[in-house]
C-alpha cells in the first residue's frame, strides 16, 4: 500500500468508526433515558 492510499484509508476509516461510535452511544443513551423516565 502506498503513502497516499494509507492516508486515505486511515482518515476515512477513523472518521467512519468515530461516526458509528456516536450513533451507537446516542442510541444507548436514548434507551437509558427512556428506561429511567418510566
Amino acid at each position: 500500500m502506498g503513502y497516499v492510499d494509507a492516508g486515505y484509508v486511515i482518515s476515512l476509516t477513523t472518521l467512519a468508526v468515530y461516526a458509528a461510535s456516536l450513533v451507537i452511544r446516542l442510541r444507548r443513551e436514548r434507551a437509558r433515558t427512556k428506561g429511567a423516565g418510566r
Partner: protein
Amino acid sequence: MRHTLDKLLGPVSVALVAITVWLGLFVTPPDAQQGDLVRLVYIHPALAWVALYVAFGMAAVCSLLYLWPRTRSMVFDRLAASAVEVGVVFTVLTLITGSIWGRPTWGVWWTWDARLTSTALLGVLFIGYLALRRVPAEPHIRARRCAVAALFAAVDVPIVHFSVVWWQTLHQGATVLNPNLTPTIHGLMAWTLLLSFVAFTLVFVWMVIARYRLETLREEGEDVELAEALVARRSEGVS
C-alpha cells in the same frame, strides 16, 4: 424543514466526501514535482482546516459566550465540548496524514518543526480539556473551568497558523490562505481542494450535532436519575 435538513446532512456529507475521494484519487492530475503524493492535498489541509479553525474556533467562541454573563447558557458549554471532542479526532488525523506525507517528501515521519510541534501541542491542550470535563464538579463550575481552559488552548491556533511565516519550517507555506490571499493552486486541483473543505466541514457539522445530542441526553438522564433517587429516599423516610 429543520428535520429534513437534519436527515439530509449525513448522506450529503458522505456523498461529498466520496466525490472528493474519487476526484482526488482518479481524476485530478499528478503534480509535476510531487507526483501522486499531491493527492494527499485533498484530505490533509481539509482535516487541518476543520480541526484548527472550525472546531477550535467554535470551541473558543462558545466558551467566550458561556463566560460572558449576558449570554451564559449550558448550551454553549455543550457545544464547546462537542466541538472539542470532534476537533481532537480531526487534529489526530491531521498529524497522521501530515506524517504520511512528510516521510516520502522530507525523509522523516516526524520532526520538531514549528508547524508540527504547535499542532501537536494544540491536540494535547484539547485532550487536556476533555480530561478536565471528566473531573467531577457541579455543572456550572465544570463549564466555567472548561471555558477558561478552551480559551487558553485556543491561543495556540494563531500560533499554528502563522508558524510557517514567523519561523523557518520544513512545512510549506499557505497555498490558499497566504498573506497576499493569492492562491497558488488552480484548475481542477483547486476545485477538488475546495470541495474537500466543504465535504469535511459538513462531516464535522453532522458529528457535532450528534455529539451535542448525546451530551444533552446524558444530562437529562442524570437529572431523571437524581429525581428518582430523591423520590426513593423520601419514600424510605415515610415508611
